[in-house]
């Protein structure tokens, strides 16, 4: 079950909200939190009993280790608990996800294949969220200990709070499957707020709006673009080794927006559902199609993964590299190579590999890493710094945009291809005539794709529209470049109510066929 299932939206969610509100009123925040945990575990059970067992066992282990980290006075124990926790999390993820690469190792391979068969659902997001919680505990021990224990106003201290809060954070159903990956310090303090356990009409209004936006993105854009433009072409290339040149180009252009609508749609829904119970999650997408460079792109695309990798992998690696270069008295390029370039490449390869055991992901990460290095180097040159002052900002942005988007389309086509050969065949199809018997997409379908691009380029994103009501936690501040005429601002008024009403009504007619989210397999 995922957030787009009608059974969840129209049966489980209303029941959950009612029980949550009743529990909150009768038993305060602990009652509401218990309902949230129970609902999340039931949601986890719909992914299979094996999934449920694994996430509960992993949550209990992580909680025990987190307690050691935040409460132990012995630095050695703290470090040991941190490394053990991260090793257990990454080990579990590796076993469940990389069986293709681990299969040749006798015992581990067998365990890996069995686990992968038992748990087809992705563990990537929740594993990262839990690992980051341990790191949060390590880097901010006092704050985390307080967050886990601090009672709600008017309530007494209770030993039940820390495990309950951690379980709620680690398995909260809106972002359990496909993120956004939240920090413990972002979510847990919200459980201690005096308003937690009460459902406020403004939260419900914001939540329903985000949910409606996400549903429209999924059913009216991602699924339709995937069905009409992307899937048949990539399947053709995989089976026959080629396709018509125009179709190949269209599929590549379409996949980029399909993936955006699919993944950002889920993120909007997750934020919306969490907001209904008063929880604000971090924003995951911030109009990435308007990025003017790869650096800008990663401040807008899958933000919660980027910031985790940057904080917990790039930064330590870069610090270590800088120290190493200083020890060796290296300067210039060699120093940069170990302090910046190498950590960046590692950073991006890990981002690629995080998606799964495929060479296309590794190459995708490597290309983005090299691109990132080149861009930061060019932007750091004196020539560019002098030159950028002489170019008007709109022209500079347009230039960046023209350079960035085609390259992103190309690299995301690599990301979508199952093998490097498929990607080569896709590129090799350019210039080939259309295959006989394949009809060109209708004008309506072209209009639909055009509309999708117009939306990602011009329309405000959900968080800009709802900005006045803080719909999500911002990790990076990106200047809005939405044209003024399209800079709509949402308010809980009749007009916006009618729009959200129309969106939900339109989506209901499409909900019988639920396609899995692209990121459900990562």
């Amino acid at each position, binding site marked *: 079950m995922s957030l787009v299932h009608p059974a*969840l939206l129209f*049966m489980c969610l209303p029941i959950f909200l009612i029980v949550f509100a009743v529990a909150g009123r009768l038993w305060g925040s602990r009652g509401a939190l218990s309902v949230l945990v129970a609902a999340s575990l039931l949601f986890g059970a719909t992914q299979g009993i094996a999934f449920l067992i694994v996430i509960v066992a992993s949550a209990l282990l992580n909680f025990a280790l987190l307690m050691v980290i935040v409460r132990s006075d012995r630095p050695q124990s703290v470090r040991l608990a941190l490394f053990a926790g991260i090793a257990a999390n990454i080990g579990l993820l590796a076993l469940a996800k990389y069986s293709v690469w681990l299969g040749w190792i006798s015992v581990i391979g067998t365990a890996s294949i069995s686990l992968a068969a038992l748990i087809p659902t992705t563990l990537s997001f929740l594993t990262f969220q839990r690992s980051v919680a341990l790191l949060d505990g390590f880097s901010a021990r006092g704050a985390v200990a307080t967050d886990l224990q601090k009672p709600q106003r008017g309530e007494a201290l209770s030993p039940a709070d820390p495990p309950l809060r951690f379980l709620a954070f680690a398995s909260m159903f809106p972002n359990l499957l496909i993120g956004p990956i939240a920090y413990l310090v972002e979510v847990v303090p919200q459980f201690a707020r005096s308003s937690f356990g009460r459902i406020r*009409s403004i939260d419900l209004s914001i939540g329903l709006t985000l949910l409606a936006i996400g549903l429209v993105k999924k059913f009216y854009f991602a699924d339709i673009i995937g069905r009409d433009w992307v899937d048949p072409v990539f399947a053709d290339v995989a089976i026959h080794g080629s396709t018509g040149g125009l179709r190949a180009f269209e599929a590549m252009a379409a996949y980029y927006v399909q993936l955006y609508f699919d993944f950002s749609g889920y993120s909007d829904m997750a934020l919306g559902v969490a907001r209904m119970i008063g929880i604000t999650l971090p924003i995951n997408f911030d109009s990435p199609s308007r990025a003017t460079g790869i650096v800008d792109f990663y401040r807008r695309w899958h933000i919660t993964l980027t910031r985790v990798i940057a904080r917990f992998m790039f930064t330590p690696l870069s610090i270590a590299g800088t120290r190493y270069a200083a020890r060796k008295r290296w300067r210039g390029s060699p120093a940069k190579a170990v302090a910046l370039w190498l950590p960046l490449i590692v950073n991006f390869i890990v981002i690629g590999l995080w998606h799964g055991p495929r060479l296309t992901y590794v190459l995708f990460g490597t290309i983005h890493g090299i691109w990132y290095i080149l861009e930061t180097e060019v932007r750091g040159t004196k020539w560019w710094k002098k030159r950028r002052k002489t170019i008007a900002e709109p022209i500079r942005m347009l230039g960046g945009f023209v350079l960035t988007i085609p390259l992103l389309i190309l690299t995301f086509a690599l990301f979508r291809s199952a093998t490097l050969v498929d990607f080569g065949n896709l590129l090799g199809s350019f210039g080939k005539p259309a295959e006989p*018997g394949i009809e060109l997409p209708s004008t309506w379908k072209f209009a639909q794709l055009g509309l999708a691009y117009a939306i990602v380029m011009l329309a405000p994103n959900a968080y800009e529209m709802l900005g006045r009501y803080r719909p999500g936690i911002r990790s990076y501040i990106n200047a809005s470049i939405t044209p003024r005429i399209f800079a709509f601002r949402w308010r809980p008024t*009749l*007009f916006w109510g009618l729009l959200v009403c129309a969106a939900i009504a339109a989506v209901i007619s499409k909900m*019988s066929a639920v396609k899995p989210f692209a990121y459900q397999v990562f």
Partner: protein
Amino acid sequence: MPAIIDTLLSAIRRTIYGAPRRRGAGKTILDRADHGFFLSVVMLPVLYGIGLCAILMLVDPYDLRPWGLPPKLTHEGYPSIVKVNLVREYLNSPHELIMLGSSTAMPFKEEQLNAAFGYTTSVNLSYEALMPPDAGRVLAAAVATPNLKRMLIGVDYVQMRGDDKMEYLGRGAVASLDNQWFDMPDFTLPVVKASLNRLKGGNFDLPEWRPEVAMLYDAPPVTVRPDMMKMLDDSVAHPDRAIFEPSPARACSSYPFIDHVLVPVGRAAMARKIHVDLLFPPVPFQSYYNWQKHPYSQYYPSWGTGSHYRQLVDFYECIVNAIAANGLTNVTAHALDADPRLTRITDFRDTIHMTRPEALRRTLLTIRHGDDVVTPATFGIYRKRMDAGVASVSTWRWSSAK
């Protein structure tokens, strides 16, 4: 007037751009109501969705949940999209005969099947573009149907596919077997309406479905369609030369249908003493010229070089040999496509779909009597009959005066 327009524009700007409220706003009832209306309006579709969901959860029309009302299906047939979702429901109820095939097998009605074979609970589960992966899944589940005595399986050129592709309906049929309680392929207004009928004590049915189902049986013959007749005429008058040219041999092991569908299903059926009839569906001989001249088919785009109909016959030979080699004594192959009584073009609604009720009845009786049974020993005769049938069309010309 300008003041009114100005006020109106200002109101629109405030509404869509969220400009600060004007002084004094919120004092009137309308202003206050405006804010209170958001949730009231948004809850309308939400409540509608909850209502749909509640009806479906109560009735469970596709038998996906452990609860729900007992099934009450109509014998008038269902549109394909509904029928594939009912696969689990059909297979959980006792049936003496199950038919499964592609569109060529769809027009056979349950009453025709009952009359031809003397059963009372036959069902035809066929849907467009049945492919090996979904055929394997549905047939494997079908073997376990309570009280089952006979299975009719339509095997056409789509079953020659070597990949694991499934079409929309095939995916629906497989999903029907795999779905869990929270999956809701039934979340559509027509299904909810039909469920309401069931809730009132009637069948799970909808009057709007009848014309759609009737189109399958009452379609006019292809001979009244000038476009198709012109295409067939041209294909025969100016044939592709390759129609009688040899085609490269394809190993029988390259057909997943044989190893993954026929053999396991045949064995499982044998263990349960179920008879299986494999049907090579009748096709007008003229159509083979059309296949040769216009080889593209979205369901089977992989014809090799040389004669296409002979590639199909080679596939059938692999099937007949596999039946014998695996000792599937309960499986009989019926080569209906070489029978001149069943391949008359006037019995077809288009180039491959037989729809005339009389012809359908004749086909079923031919199967019942085993007139066209083909075995490894008689396969040579069948091959010659096919060659002769196709060759005999070379002088054929259609004229509406005929």
